[in-house]
C-alpha cells in the first residue's frame, strides 16, 4: 500500500513539474509573432510596436482594473513628462485648433513620413456646437472654456491633459499627444484655444 502511495505521490510531482515547465507563455509567443508577421511601412514601424514603453506594457496586462497604488505610480511618472509651453503662453489660434481636431491623419502606415499630424479629437469628443459628427468614447468638451473658466490653473491642467492624459488617468484610452510627439507645442496651443478661447465655437 505504502509503495502505491509513494509511486502515486512521485508521479504527481513529476507530472506537476512537467506541466509547470511546459506551461505555455502566450504573451511571449505573441511577441515573437509580432516580429515575424508585421512589416514596417511609412512612419509605422515594427520596432516601435515590439518595444512597448513601461506604461503600455503595464496597461496591456492590467487591462481591466488597477490598484490605487499602481495607478498612482503611473500618473506620477507621466506627470513628470509634461513639457509646458516654452514662452508660458498657453493659447494659440482656435481656427487652427479646429483643423487639428478634424484631422485624423498622422503616423499611419498610409501617411507620408514627416507629414502634418492631426489630433482627431472629434473621433472621441464632442467639441463645437455645430459639428454633429463626433464620437462618445471620451466626455463632451462642448462649452469647456465656459464651464471651467480662463485661469492659470485651468490652463495648466488642460495643457497637461492634452500633453499626457495618463498624468491624471492611468491607462487612459486617450493618446499622449505631446509625450508621443503627435502634436507639437504650437498645435497644442491651437487646440487649447479651441477649448478655452471665449470666442471659440466651443464656447458659444
Amino acid at each position, binding site marked *: 500500500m505504502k509503495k502505491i502511495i509513494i509511486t502515486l505521490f512521485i508521479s504527481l510531482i513529476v507530472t506537476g513539474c512537467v506541466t509547470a515547465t511546459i506551461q505555455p507563455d502566450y504573451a511571449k*509567443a505573441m511577441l515573437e509573432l509580432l516580429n515575424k508577421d508585421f512589416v514596417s511601412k511609412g512612419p509605422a514601424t515594427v520596432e516601435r510596436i515590439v518595444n512597448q514603453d513601461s506604461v503600455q506594457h503595464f496597461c496591456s496586462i492590467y487591462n481591466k482594473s488597477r490598484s490605487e497604488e499602481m495607478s498612482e505610480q503611473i500618473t506620477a511618472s507621466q506627470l513628470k513628462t509634461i513639457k509646458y509651453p516654452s514662452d508660458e503662453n498657453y493659447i494659440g489660434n482656435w481656427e487652427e485648433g479646429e483643423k487639428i481636431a478634424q484631422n485624423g491623419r498622422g*503616423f499611419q502606415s498610409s501617411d507620408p513620413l514627416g507629414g502634418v499630424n492631426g489630433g482627431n479629437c472629434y473621433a472621441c469628443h464632442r467639441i463645437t456646437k455645430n459639428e454633429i459628427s463626433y464620437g462618445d468614447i471620451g466626455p463632451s468638451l462642448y462649452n469647456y472654456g465656459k464651464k471651467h473658466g480662463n485661469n492659470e490653473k485651468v490652463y495648466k491642467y488642460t495643457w497637461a491633459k492634452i500633453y499626457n492624459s495618463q498624468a491624471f488617468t492611468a491607462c487612459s484610452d486617450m493618446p499622449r499627444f505631446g509625450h508621443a510627439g503627435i502634436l507639437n507645442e504650437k498645435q497644442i496651443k491651437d487646440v487649447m484655444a479651441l477649448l478655452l478661447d471665449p470666442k471659440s465655437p466651443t464656447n458659444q
Partner: protein
Amino acid sequence: MKLIMKYSLTILAILVAPCVLAEGSSSDEIAKYRELLADGNPAELWEMRGEELWKKKVSPNNVSLERCDLGKGPGVLKGAYVELPRYFEDVNKVMDLEQRLIFCRTSIQGLSYEQAVSSHFGSVGNPSDIEALVAYITSESKGMKMAVSIKHPKEMEAYEIGKNFFYYRAGTHDFSCATCHSSDKKRIRLQELSNLLNKKDAQKTYATWPAYRVSQGEVRTMQHRLSDCLRQQRFPEPKYASTTMTALIMFMAKNAEGGVFDGPALKR
C-alpha cells in the same frame, strides 16, 4: 403650484425629446437603409464568381478546388466556414479560411505562393479570386451557428495569442483593439463600435464579415477589416494571412460562438 410644475415638466420633456431622438434616429435610419439594400447585395455576384472559381480546373495541375478540405472533409462546403479557424492535421497548425484556401491553391492546384495570394485585396480592374472564393464558401454557411473549437492545444494557443494581441497597447497612440472594442454602446465619430468582449455584440459583428463594402465597391474579408483597423491603430502592416491574424480571428470567432452567420453582408 403643483399643476404648474406638472405642465412645466411635460413641456420640458417634449422639448428635450426631439434632441434625444435625433441622436438615436440616425443609426435607426442607417439600419433601415441597410434593410432596403439587403435585397440587392452585389456580394451575390462575387458568390457566383467564387462558385465558378471553386469548380474551375487550374494549371499547372489542371485540377479544381473541389477536393479542398476546409475541415469537414474534401469538398464539403456546408457549415465549413462556421467552424473556422481550426486545427488541420495535414499541416499541423491552425488555419483560417483564407490561409486554407491559399494552402489548397498551392498544394492541390500547384500554384506558387505568390500566385495564390496575388491580388488578395481586389481593386478596380484587378478582381480578387480569394475574395470571390470567400464570398462563395461563406454563403454555404448562411443561417448556421458559429461553432469554432478550442479543444486542440494549438486551437487554444491561437485563441490565447489572439486574446493577448487584442489587449496589446503599442505604437505612437497607445492603441490596442480593446481601446475601441471593449465597451458597450460607444462610437467613433458616428460609427458605432462593437464590444467584442460582449457575446451578443461579438456574435452580431462577426457575422457581418465578409461583406460587400459600398465605399470600396468590393467584397471585403475579415483579413481586410483587420488590416484597416491596424493601420488606424498606427501599427505597421500585417502580413496577409499571417499567424497573428489567424490568432486574432480565432479569438473573435470563439467570442462569437453560437451566433447565427448571415453573410456575406452589405456594409458602407
